[in-house]
């Protein structure tokens, strides 16, 4: 960095410290140590600067004080590790210490007699764990403000004094700290953000689980915010500040923007909701940045509002009346029936450097308004509140009540502006109503450091919010992955159970009931069994065609078939039942899958017939081993294979007729061999059938969308990398 720049910064630093002590005096913005949850934030300077109470009048002194503070803080700890000559960077370095250290340093350093030492300990004990709120209004021209305003602030002051305040924690120069980052650090930050953006873009939530809609929305928001705001903002820090005017329908956002711009740029009216397309008003000098820049790049730029502009456009209007360096963005509402408006409004807010929140005397207790305030608080966005349409006679009551609500909510210290209900002429308020706001804008415009700080603060808040928002996304992704694997496990369990059922049926002999048993009795009792054996020396001529063999074989096949079909049916129902119990989505996915597929019966029949043939082959090729038998007796291989199957299925009855028969014919050893082969072959065939069945469920799951596990890890990684780079 060149020295000229450094000089410039020192100057601006001076100006800034000028305004801050006034703030401290008038509005009791208690100085804070850096919040302990964000130890990496460059806060040291902040605390130093704020803790240095100087008289507003003495500009030069202030500058000196601030510099002194820094230098002594630096010297005291002797942590001049940075190669940068800039005080800001040094401050950042010291900010890496614990939260208490900078405040301590400030105490040591501030030799100013006007110090308020009692604020230091209180600031230390407060240590609020939330992102810091907005800074209070600049007060150079506070004297010019209306008496109402002064009263308001003093009441705010009184209330703020009574409780631990959540105040300003950052000095302006903190904003500069990162701007002076070495180029490669900025590069790294950009790279980390780019990686984050890519991993967020890759996230898909295929399963409509509870929370998926929110997660999808979060994803869209994150993506939009990264592209619309964070990346452009990190790339070019010196850009004009975008101030987004948001609030309820009918609160008068457009009227306010029109009045400030002194030009009818946004349509006003009695119809609710009025504004559908966001309208951006800026100084002609800033136009290029907003029209050609990357900020909100996804929106089509228009020169003037048109009724068919739609919501993905942005009207850019220039006006000389707005100071350079600040741009106002009029947004659709956050609470009307047109829900797309809420989305657009939130997208705009996500891209904002500062928020102006507009509410009215009739609305300030509305739930949506407070949801938005909560969001601002969570994001750590710089915020100013405008309470408009206040009847002059009820002004005090309303204001007091509203301030109390804000204070209870921890937002007591935010810039507030009150606009009386007054006659709107030509879509604009009387100029007197918006003077305060206009001055506030002018200050922002003039005081580059303040602006930069506000910009930086919101950016930091947004980056901080990634710490929770991105992991939340990853978490939901993991939920989806977990859900999916649970469903898959359900399928697997059910079909494994089915296979076990089949196995049990084969082993327990339960197959040999009903028709199979009757056919066996028929086969044996009618003497057919005996006839299938012939003594070898009688020759083969006498063999008759086995009459009952066919029906026995069929009975056996249909017996096995029914065992398989029953198991498959049970498994299908079990899967569907389990899926239904898990989630509503499970029921949707399982639609039409609650019974075996249509041709399952046919396939099972085919598989078993093939198995029977296979067993026949086994018996005739491998079962001839016992020569002593084959010398004496010839037998019909088909009958033998049937007897063999019966023996196999009769389970534990090793003493049964079929078992003893085949044992005698084939020999114990060869029987065991064939038995094992036949059974494992049958199991394999059934396993294949069941696999095909369970594929239907896997397909149904896959068609719903496959969340990729690795993306969750990438999200965590990207968040972590971002933190490291920051």
């Amino acid at each position, binding site marked *: 960095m060149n020295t000229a720049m450094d000089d410039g910064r020192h100057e601006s630093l001076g100006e800034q410290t000028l305004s801050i002590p006034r703030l401290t005096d008038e509005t009791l913005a208690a100085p804070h140590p850096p919040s302990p949850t964000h130890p990496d934030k460059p806060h040291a300077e902040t605390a130093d600067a704020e803790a240095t109470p100087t008289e507003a009048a003495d500009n030069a002194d202030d500058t000196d004080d601030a510099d002194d503070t820094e230098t002594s803080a630096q010297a005291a700890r002797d942590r001049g590790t940075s190669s940068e000559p800039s005080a800001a960077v040094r401050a950042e370095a010291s900010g890496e210490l614990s939260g208490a250290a900078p405040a301590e340093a400030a105490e040591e350093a501030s030799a100013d007699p006007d110090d308020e030492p009692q604020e230091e300990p209180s600031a230390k004990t407060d240590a609020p764990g939330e992102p810091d709120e907005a800074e209070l209004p600049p007060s150079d021209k506070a004297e010019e403000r209306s008496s109402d305003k002064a009263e308001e602030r003093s009441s705010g002051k009184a209330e703020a004094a009574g409780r631990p305040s959540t105040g300003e924690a950052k000095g302006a120069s903190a904003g500069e700290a990162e701007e002076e980052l070495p180029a490669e650090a900025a590069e790294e930050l950009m790279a980390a953000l780019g990686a984050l953006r890519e991993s967020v873009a890759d996230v898909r939530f295929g399963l409509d689980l509870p929370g998926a809609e929110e997660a999808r929305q979060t994803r869209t928001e994150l993506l939009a915010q990264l592209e619309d705001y964070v990346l452009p903002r990190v790339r070019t820090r010196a850009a004009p500040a975008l101030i987004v005017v948001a609030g*309820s*329908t*009918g609160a008068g956002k457009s009227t306010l923007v029109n009045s400030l711009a002194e030009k009818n740029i946004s349509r006003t*009216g*009695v*119809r*609710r*909701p009025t504004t559908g397309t966001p309208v951006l008003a800026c100084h002609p000098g800033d136009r290029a940045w907003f029209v050609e820049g990357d900020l909100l790049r996804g929106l089509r730029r228009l020169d003037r509002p048109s009724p068919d502009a739609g919501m993905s456009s942005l009207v850019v209007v220039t006006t000389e009346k707005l100071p350079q360096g600040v741009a106002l963005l009029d947004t659709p509402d956050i*609470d*009307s*029936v*047109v*829900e797309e408006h*809420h989305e657009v409004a939130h997208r705009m807010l996500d891209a904002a450097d500062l928020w102006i929140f507009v509410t009215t*005397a009739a*609305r*300030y*207790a*509305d*739930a*949506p308004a407070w949801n938005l305030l909560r969001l601002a608080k969570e994001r750590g966005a710089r915020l100013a509140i405008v309470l408009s*349409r206040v009847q002059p006679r*009820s002004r005090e*009551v309303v204001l007091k009540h509203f301030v109390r609500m804000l204070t209870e909510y921890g937002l007591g210290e935010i810039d507030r502006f009150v606009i009386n209900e007054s006659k709107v002429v030509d879509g604009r308020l009387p100029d007197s109503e918006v003077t305060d706001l206009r001055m506030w804008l002018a200050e922002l415009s003039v005081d580059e450091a303040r602006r930069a700080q506000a910009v930086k603060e919101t950016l930091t808040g947004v980056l901080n919010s990634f710490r929770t928002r991105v992991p939340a996304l990853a978490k939901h992704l993991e939920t989806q992955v977990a859900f999916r694997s649970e469903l898959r496990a359900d399928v697997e369990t059910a079909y494994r159970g089915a296979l076990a059922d089949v196995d049990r*049926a084969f082993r327990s002999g*339960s197959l040999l*009931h*009903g*028709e*199979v*048993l*009757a056919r066996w*009795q*028929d086969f*044996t*009792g*009618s*003497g057919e*069994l*005996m006839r299938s*054996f012939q*003594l070898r020396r*009688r020759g083969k001529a006498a063999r008759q065609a086995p009459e009952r063999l066919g*029906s026995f074989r069929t009975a056996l096949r*249909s017996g096995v078939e029914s*065992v398989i079909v*029953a*198991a498959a049916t049970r498994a299908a*129902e079990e899967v569907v*039942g389990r899926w239904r119990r898990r989630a509503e989505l499970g*029921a949707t996915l399982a*639609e039409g899958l609650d*019974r075996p597929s249509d041709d399952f019966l046919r396939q099972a029949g085919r598989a078993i017939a093939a198995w029977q043939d296979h067993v026949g082959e086994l018996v005739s090729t491998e079962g001839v081993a016992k020569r002593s038998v084959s010398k*004496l*007796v010839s037998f019909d291989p088909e009958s033998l294979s049937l007897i063999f199957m019966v023996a196999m299925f009769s389970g534990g009855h090793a003493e049964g*007729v079929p078992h*003893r*028969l085949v044992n*005698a*014919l084939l020999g114990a050893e060869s029987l065991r061999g064939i038995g094992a082969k036949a059974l494992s072959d049958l199991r394999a065939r059934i396993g294949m059938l069941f696999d095909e069945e369970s594929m239907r469920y896997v397909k149904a799951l896959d068609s719903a969308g496959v969340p990729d596990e690795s993306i969750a890890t990438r999200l965590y990684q990207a968040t972590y990398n971002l933190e490291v780079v920051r």
Partner: protein
Amino acid sequence: MTAPMTTPTAAAAPPARPGLAPRLSALTRIVELGPGRLDNKLLTEAGTLLQRAGDRLKLSSEHTVVALAGGTGSGKSSLFNAVSGLELSPTGVRRPTTGRTHACVWGLDGAAPLLDWLKVEGRHRFSRASALDKGDGQLHGLILLDLPDHDSIRALTDTEADRLIGQADLVVWVLDPQKYADASTHRRYVTELAGHEAVTVFALNQADRLTAEELAELVIDLNDLLRREGVEHPTVVPTSAITGRGIESLKSVIAGAVSRRRAAIQKLDADLHRLEQRVAKAMPVGDALNAPSTVDEARRMGLTDALCDAVGVPAVGEAMENVYAERSNQWVGWPYPRWIAKLRPDPLKTLRLDDVGDEIRGISTTTVSAQSAEVANAVQSLADGLSTGMHPVWRTAVHQAARSRMSQLPKALTDELSDLAPRLDHVPGWWRLLKIWQYVLVAAFVAGLAWLAVGVFMPGQVPDALRVLGDTAALPWVGLMLVAVLGLGALSGIASRNFVELGASKERERLEREMRRRVASVAGTMVVEPVERELARHHGFYTALRDLSP
């Protein structure tokens, strides 16, 4: 003029309300039949509505509960005061202003139980002695409620407004130019209002803030908005509590509803309609009413057939027939082939498996038992056939009902049929007679052979007493007789085997009939009955749903 009410009076007996009663009883049936079938949330709502309808109908029908509802700051309390003509409800600029519901009653008799039911606190109840106010006579019977808002941060934890919007007979939505298009009003309430036109009024309050043109534009916009959301003929009354504009029109709208005394019924009617729509959406009636409500004869037969197959009834019969035929051969058959076969060496004996052979031959009874997998499939296919086209929940229910006693069914079938299993070692008396006859024939054949031998080989040595034996002239006749004896044996063997087979097939038919009968009766009690109960429930549910729609 205003006084907290203290004397509760008995509610008037509800007069006959045609139309609503059958629909409510249909809803009762739905609530009874729904659990486990209908979504729990919907079921709870149905129960709540039923309860509310019962309560409301029991309470004063002379009164009409009109609630002023709306967002915070829309001016409900101001309107309340303007209509009642008194400063009853505190108004203010702080938001939210009204935290508890205020009530004003025109005509006190019988209102107290109603107010108790609405849970309006005693100190927030006021009454108007209507006779004293001129022009308010038409409002006699009105209970006007000033509700808390539904959209402030306070309302997030307070459901009072929500509850009373449900309970009131007529709801006046108080909208204002700032908030009339708020999502909190429209998404939560207005979109639910389709069919409620008769009991909903929209008051566009704070009309004094607008110019005439603006107001006209806004009224048009509001009408469009409401129509888009399904409120087809919205009643929109622009009012101003400050200037008093429109208050009279609002009063007359309310008075109309009050004097008709029908708002309570119309409200319940509309609520029922909405609920019916939602239930019908969750469980479309479609042709559910065409689904079978009983198990018809063909399906019963199908089930019995399938179960008979599972038990193996035809196979048992066939086996019996075959075994009888085989066994009878030992008794009634021509003995010679049997003897020849016996000479043949037994393969089992060669394999030293005599005991196996004995065992096979010695099987004395058939065993009848059910194969559980086939039983399961039989039951499954019945349920499949019956539940085709049903809503998945009902389909599952039918399956479950069919399977409810699945674990006992195979055993029950086996037990029921086992005493029918034919004995294979049964030997009828005529078999024995025939055996004797065959042996007599054999004896005759042997005797004939002996005669022949004597006549041929030693004609001279025959004692005189048996001279005829030596008569060579008789020998051809003897030979003929031998052939005849053999033939007679063979013929009677064939004939009696035919008789055996005939008898066996008759026996088989009898057996199969008896088995089928028993299978059918077991199936009837263990499968068909539970299934029919479920089918009746299904039918009852959808009938009730049909009856629910007007």
